[in-house]
């Protein structure tokens, strides 16, 4: 499995090179974490399809290419205008090719409500919090992408919501890959810490443009303290030449609520890992997802929820509409530990194949050690209902409109879970556009 690739060699060389230029920081605790992660990455190498978790998602074409990491870009305020999400108010942070761009960004929330800082700054200014939570939840042991992200952890955001603070305005992280000049890559690393009873909404919105290949390997860790409530969105709208691979690792304490909405409107190759550990009682985790690949796009969602304590609930609904020759993967793991009696865990993944050439691979995996639990899971993959289509046509609705209406109705259930109105509208627009595309 220890495949040596161009990209791997490049990354290891880059790491050594950057290390050589460091002075004091090379000995800091966080750099030791990075060094260890690099070792893990070196040992693992990028996964091949022989790896069970990567069976349907082949990164061979990705790892044989080279990329400019954190490449400079002349992305400007005028470009921001072009890519803005209409009517969106709140904290909007721009990361261009991975690098935070302060002049394009707006932070509106008061600092006593929430601390929003580039990770590199927070490593210095909030060393205690970083040490406590950084790299505690994202596991590099069997994931080369997480390992290499950790090895290069520097760019990204640090969000810290103190106890009892309710962050009124959402925090939107816009990761923009500018691939107009060359192949570009970025490895954002985010840490979100929500204190006791804190509430916050955070969205990661990925966008790429240009003809060259872009590769984004994002890792986000989220700590949700007792009774805290975190809404997390991952929105992907990238080109067909883009690779977007990432992990969101969540740790929940008792009576906390965490909700993830993962929506892939576009992207050549997408792999989203969402791992949630519920380590307290009466907590609730919600995982909603929607993907609409067309052409040769590939979208892979791997989710895992680990119930470690009794009396908690998890709720999962993923929906996919697959057109043309697109491919999709859903792998949903539910663990219920022996201690976690009275767990309720529900999982559902529903897919509609619009073309005969589209494929969907689904795999629910339940591992339950407790005996007094309620768990259910179901996956369906089908076509649009012919009877419904005929019924609509018989009322004068053209076949194309009828199909679009049915698809939109199918997707609506997930869209309706969105709680940031501007993001919801933005996605609705993208989805309608995509659905009506021939």
């Amino acid at each position, binding site marked *: 499995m220890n495949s040596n690739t161009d990209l791997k060699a490049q990354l290891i060389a880059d790491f050594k090179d950057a290390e050589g230029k460091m002075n004091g920081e090379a000995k800091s605790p966080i750099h030791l974490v990075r060094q260890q992660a690099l070792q893990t990455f070196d040992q693992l190498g990028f996964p091949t399809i022989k790896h069970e978790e990567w069976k349907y998602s082949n990164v061979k074409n990705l790892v044989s290419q080279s990329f400019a990491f954190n490449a400079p870009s002349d992305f400007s305020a005028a470009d921001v205008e072009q890519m803005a999400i209409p009517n969106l108010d709140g904290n909007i942070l721009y990361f261009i090719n991975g690098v935070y761009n302060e002049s394009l960004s707006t932070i509106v929330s008061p600092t006593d409500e929430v601390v929003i800082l580039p990770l590199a700054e927070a490593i210095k200014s909030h060393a205690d919090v970083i040490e406590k939570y950084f790299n505690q939840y994202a596991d590099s042991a069997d994931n080369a992408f997480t390992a290499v992200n950790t090895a290069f952890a520097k760019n990204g955001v640090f969000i810290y919501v103190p106890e009892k603070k309710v962050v009124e305005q959402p925090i939107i992280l816009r990761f923009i890959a500018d691939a107009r000049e060359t192949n570009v890559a970025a490895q954002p690393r985010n840490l979100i810490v929500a204190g006791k009873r804190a509430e916050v909404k955070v969205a990661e919105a990925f966008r790429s443009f240009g003809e060259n290949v872009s590769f984004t390997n994002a890792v986000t860790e989220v700590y949700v303290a007792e009774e805290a409530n975190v809404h997390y969105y991952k929105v992907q709208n990238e080109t067909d030449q883009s690779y977007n691979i990432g992990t969101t690792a969540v740790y929940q304490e008792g009576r906390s609520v965490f909700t993830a909405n993962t929506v892939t409107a576009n992207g050549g190759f997408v792999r989203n890992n969402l791992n949630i550990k519920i380590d307290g009682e009466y907590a609730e985790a919600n995982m909603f997802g929607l993907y609409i690949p067309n052409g040769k796009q590939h979208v892979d969602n791997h989710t895992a929820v680990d119930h470690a304590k009794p009396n908690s609930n998890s709720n999962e609904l993923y929906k996919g509409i697959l057109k043309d020759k697109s491919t999709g993967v859903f792998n949903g793991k539910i663990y219920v530990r022996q201690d976690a009696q009275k767990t309720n865990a529900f999982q559902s993944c529903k897919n509609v194949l619009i073309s005969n050439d589209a494929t969907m691979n689904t795999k629910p995996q339940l591992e339950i050690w407790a005996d007094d639990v309620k768990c259910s899971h179901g996956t369906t993959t089908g076509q649009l209902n012919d009877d419904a289509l*005929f019924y609509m046509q*018989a009322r004068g609705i053209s076949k194309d409109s009828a199909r679009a209406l049915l698809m939109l*109705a199918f997707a609506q259930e997930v869209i309706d879970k969105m709680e940031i109105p501007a993001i919801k509208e933005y996605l609705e627009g993208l989805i309608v556009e995509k659905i009506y595309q021939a």
Partner: protein
Amino acid sequence: MLKINNLQAKIGEKEILKGINLEVKAGEVHAIMGPNGSGKSTLASVLAGREDYEVTGGSVDFFGKDLLDLAPEERAAEGIFLAFQYPVEIPGVSTTNFLKTAVNEIRKYRGEEPLDAVQFLKMFKQKMSYVNIDQSLLNRALNEGFSGGEKKRNEIFQMAVLEPKLAILDETDSGLDIDALRIVAEGVNKLKSPDNATIVVTHYQRLLDYIVPDYVHVLYKGRIVKSGTKELALELEERGYDWIKAEVDAAEVSA
């Protein structure tokens, strides 16, 4: 308006319609009766354009146009309406939204301007009174979880909105309680005019007490084997189908 000539259709290898002849003129009401499985719904579906059925012979002329050449949505725009025996549940799409889309697509086909929200509101309100249907029902996903009677009432509401030239009602009376039957039948009668026509598929005389047919046809084994006036329906109510079946089967043997 409608001329069906020697229409034959099959599904898979199974021949279902074996030569239907029927002419419907503006202002007329035709009742089609016949035993279960004789092909009544198939005829309705073929007229509405269901692709599962393969038309193997014959022709259908609708106002001078070859109906069989048109897509289902084009037939609807030309003025054909089928009230389904089993209305389909469409999750996630409300009746109002569905009908707005339908009305405006039909208007587009006819080269008319789309209606706006206010015009829809006014029109829906008026048409709702025809069949005594409740707004809350129309806000729900189309037919999803509707009772049998609600589904049928909703079909007639849609008919009222779309104002077809030819309405084909496939067992719209089944599943209706006595009051609902009367309301639905009155709705159909209100929509009647000298310019449109109705084909009523039914098993029961009680509907024909309200919607009085000009002609009654009996469909059996894929053919119209007997036609008459409204008295034929009364006779069928009394005597059942056995005597007709016997006549037809005897003719088959001697042929």
